[in-house]
């Protein structure tokens, strides 16, 4: 591997020529023609090749699997199933339950996440002493493996001896009967949303911060005429100006939030169960896909669910982008 061998940049560049390579005399041998015509494709081909095999093909193939019987525990049961898997999906309470959970947690996790991130970005968008270190600091949750942090939160939210319940008891809640966070939808959603929020606030704050810093300064000067204070500045000037990044983060959180897997999975007292609570209180779609595919061993049905999830993500992402666009546009 000679990745490290760095030749010095070609010395003393000639005055710029117009597209020298293309107008080169024909005497150049076939090597150069090959270099010009084929090599660019060669350079991009690894990406497209690998993507085709491990990205595109599975997606197409997934469509086929979804239309077939494909069970790991009963390999003899094969053949086309037509739309049977999708039909099953429509009547499957577990699916609708998981869909509801996914959305519930998604909203609890996304809205505060982006709002708080905005405020943190606003804090960071000052002249600060040691500003790099503040930025690195807010990334702590981002680099922490989600498996590791979720396990901490799982202990944090445990019914007996959990720190969350201890904090609640300090302010007078649940002294006689501690809250079982895993028992109810609302409490388990809050617990999981807390984990998601914790992980992504810093990351989003940096995205916002970077957009904020590229806002031309004179915009703020112009706004001085209104006598806008810092808060008004944030909402009236900054937010509309960083709208593209806002949309970007909304789309990102949508794609991520609707595929939520790690947190619900490891929040379980027994993570091997993948059931999202005793009654699927917090089972998300991604978790259900895992359970159906690799615990119930019904890959065909799991494939159908993946498709449904994809369609849902598309719709929601589009709606979100639209709504954010409107909102931002209206503010301006």
């Amino acid at each position: 591997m000679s990745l490290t061998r760095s030749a010095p940049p070609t010395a003393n560049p000639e005055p710029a020529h117009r597209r020298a390579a293309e107008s080169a005399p024909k005497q150049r041998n076939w090597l150069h023609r090959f270099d010009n015509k084929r090599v660019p494709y060669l350079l991009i081909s690894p990406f497209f090749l690998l993507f085709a095999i491990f990205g595109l093909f599975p997606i197409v193939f997934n469509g086929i699997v979804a239309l077939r019987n494909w069970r790991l525990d009963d390999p003899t049961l094969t053949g086309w199933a037509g739309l049977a898997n999708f039909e099953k999906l429509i009547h499957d309470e577990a699916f609708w339950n998981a869909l509801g959970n996914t959305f519930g947690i998604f909203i609890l996790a996304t809205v505060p996440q982006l709002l708080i991130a905005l405020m943190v970005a606003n804090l960071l968008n000052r002249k600060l002493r040691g500003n790099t270190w503040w930025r690195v600091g807010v990334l702590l949750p981002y680099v922490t493996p989600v498996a590791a942090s979720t396990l901490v939160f799982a202990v944090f939210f445990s019914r007996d001896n959990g720190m969350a319940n201890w904090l609640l008891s300090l302010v007078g809640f649940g002294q006689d009967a501690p809250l079982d966070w895993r028992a109810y939808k609302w409490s388990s959603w809050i617990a999981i949303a807390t984990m998601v929020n914790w992980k992504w606030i810093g990351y989003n704050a940096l995205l916002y911060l970077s957009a904020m810093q590229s806002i031309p300064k004179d915009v703020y000067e112009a706004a001085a005429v209104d006598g806008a204070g810092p808060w008004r500045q944030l909402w009236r000037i900054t937010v509309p100006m960083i709208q593209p990044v806002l949309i970007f983060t909304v789309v990102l959180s949508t794609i991520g939030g609707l595929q939520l897997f790690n947190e619900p999975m490891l929040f379980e007292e027994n993570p091997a169960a993948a059931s999202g609570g005793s009654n699927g209180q917090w089972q998300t779609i991604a978790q259900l896909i895992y359970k159906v595919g690799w615990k119930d061993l019904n890959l065909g049905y799991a494939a159908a669910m993946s498709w449904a999830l994809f369609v849902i993500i598309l719709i929601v992402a589009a709606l979100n982008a639209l709504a954010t666009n409107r909102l931002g546009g209206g503010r301006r």
Partner: protein
Amino acid sequence: MTATAPRLKPRRRAEIGRAPQDTGGNWRTYIALVAVLALSAFPLYWMFVIATSTDEAVAQIPPSVVPGGEFVNNLREVFTLQQVYFAASLINSFIVAFVVTASTLFFCSLAGFAFAKLRFPGRDKLMIVVILTLTVPNQLGIVALYILMGKLGWNGTLLSVIAPFLVSAFGVFYMRQFIMHAVPDELIESARMDGALTMRVYWSIVLPAIRPALAVLGLLTFVATWNEFQWPLIQLNGTEFPTSMVALSDLASGNYVIYRRVLAGAFAATVPLLVLLVLGGRQIVRGIMEGAVKS
């Protein structure tokens, strides 16, 4: 908190009209930031506290908030737990993250270079394809990918968790943006005049110029790969070749789950990334912030 503007004090008035990035942070800013940092760090800190405690300390109310002296003990338990393969899992995670990172850097900088500086028919359309693939959720093909790996005979091997991540659309995109700005056209053209072939240009001009971007993309890729959970879980659960994330979930789902042990393992699996954050924090911050502006 609502955006009610109180009567402005004279000093504050002076700040109006100045861009926030020119305004110095006051004590309130710092207090708020310290609070943000404390909340960010707390779960990590508490992970460490439990990882260093005895069973009794873990179960006690009010919870203990100072580290105990059992870290080495707990860690030893994790590493000697035969069925979890914890030590091996750390090595596996390193292997997977290294291979994926190196491959991503190499292939994505090649493709990024082609998209940024070379002219060929269909270039812009292909670039749009790359950007579109960015939005495809990886859940979508997961079942078929599993079947594919089975046909390749890779199920349950490290190859199965490496292969799908060898390139990333984000990497290509990021490299393209960086190379467009960081490598002057003139430099490339003059090299061409001297008869340098494309690969020569890549090695001698592009690579040296994009080192900072390689560092950024490398760090981000390493972190993301290390933390990958769902796919490795599907592939490697129950094998002797887990990644550290899979080993962690194993540690948390046996019949004898002991919190101090689980979190000692969690801490051990987090440390490498904390080291990276300390060494390369600047680059990671930069990578995230640059990624944002350009998309």
